[in-house]
């Protein structure tokens, strides 16, 4: 369960968008899509462990030079990630854009969780680039 029983409003939700250049790690028997699913499910768990009270949405896209982009999304721990588009070549350079909209977790903690999940499944070939900020109503 990814929900702490607290009352939430729009001000409780923070937004963090991040860009990273990555190469998928080689994991035996795991294709690009499955790797992305595992990454998203891992990220959902990590943000929850860091105090996220509700996953509003974690979504983004993976782009390579030679394939159609792959769009991804997850909304809860234990829920299946949704993938649309692709397929992506497994051992190539990907540009990953990840937007997280979460309750009760500030962007620095979101980025920390993202970095940990990325390092679990990908080799980072450059710095993570912050593209968003907390949402304020």
């Amino acid at each position, binding site marked *: 369960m990814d*929900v702490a*029983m*607290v*009352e*939430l*409003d*729009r001000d409780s*939700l923070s*937004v963090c*968008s991040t*860009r990273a250049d990555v190469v998928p790690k080689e994991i035996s028997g795991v294709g690009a899509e499955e790797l992305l699913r595992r990454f998203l499910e891992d990220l959902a768990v990590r943000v929850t462990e860091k105090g996220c*009270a*509700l*996953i*509003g*949405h974690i*979504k*983004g*896209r993976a782009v390579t030079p030679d394939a*159609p*982009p792959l*769009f991804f*999304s997850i*909304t*809860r721990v234990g*829920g299946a990630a949704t993938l*649309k*588009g692709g397929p992506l070549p497994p051992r190539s350079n990907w540009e990953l*854009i990840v*937007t997280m*909209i979460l309750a009760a977790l500030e962007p620095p903690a979101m980025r920390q969780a993202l970095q940990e999940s990325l390092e679990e499944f990908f080799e980072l070939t450059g710095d993570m680039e912050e*593209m*968003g*900020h907390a*949402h*304020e*109503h």
Partner: protein
Amino acid sequence: MKLIILTGFLGSGKTTLLLEMVRGLLARQPARYVVLENEVGEVDVDGSYLSGQGLEVRELFAGCVCCQLAGALVPTLEEIESSLHPDAVFMEASGMANAHSIVDALDRYCRIIEKRLVVSLADLDRLEMLLEIARPLITSQLEPAQVVLLTKSDLVNPNETQKAAERIAQINPNAEIIGVSALRGEGIGDLIEWMWRWWN
């Protein structure tokens, strides 16, 4: 110009259903549709997906259309109308948007809309929980709707869908309520049929 506003909490399936609506209506009659995509993140994810599916997309991002970007909404719709002359605009509001605020702003300041439809999405997988912890936001998205789509019906049993429909009817007794699963294609035909009747 007709305006279809899609509202609903984050991750409820707005982008997926928007694509189904546009495709379903285009299959009945050729028309020019433009999508106005609103995202709170600095990066446009959904608009880029819809563009890749061949839709004509304009974007309002890095803020929510019900508050930070409210001032930009009417000029953007006017610009779309004058430059593209669409038959209809499908506007996907951010999942954090208060639909009352959007409707109020449009009713007060926008003179180019001849017909407006508010479609609200409620994710069956999370509706109960969201009504528990974020009721004011969720009800603000459901109350102004003429149609409420109970999405992800493949994830719950029919009894749960029925219970959810009853809860929605308490919040918005006037709305048409349709259960849909984009994954299985269930309910999409009913939705298109309902929209077609509204359209004409």
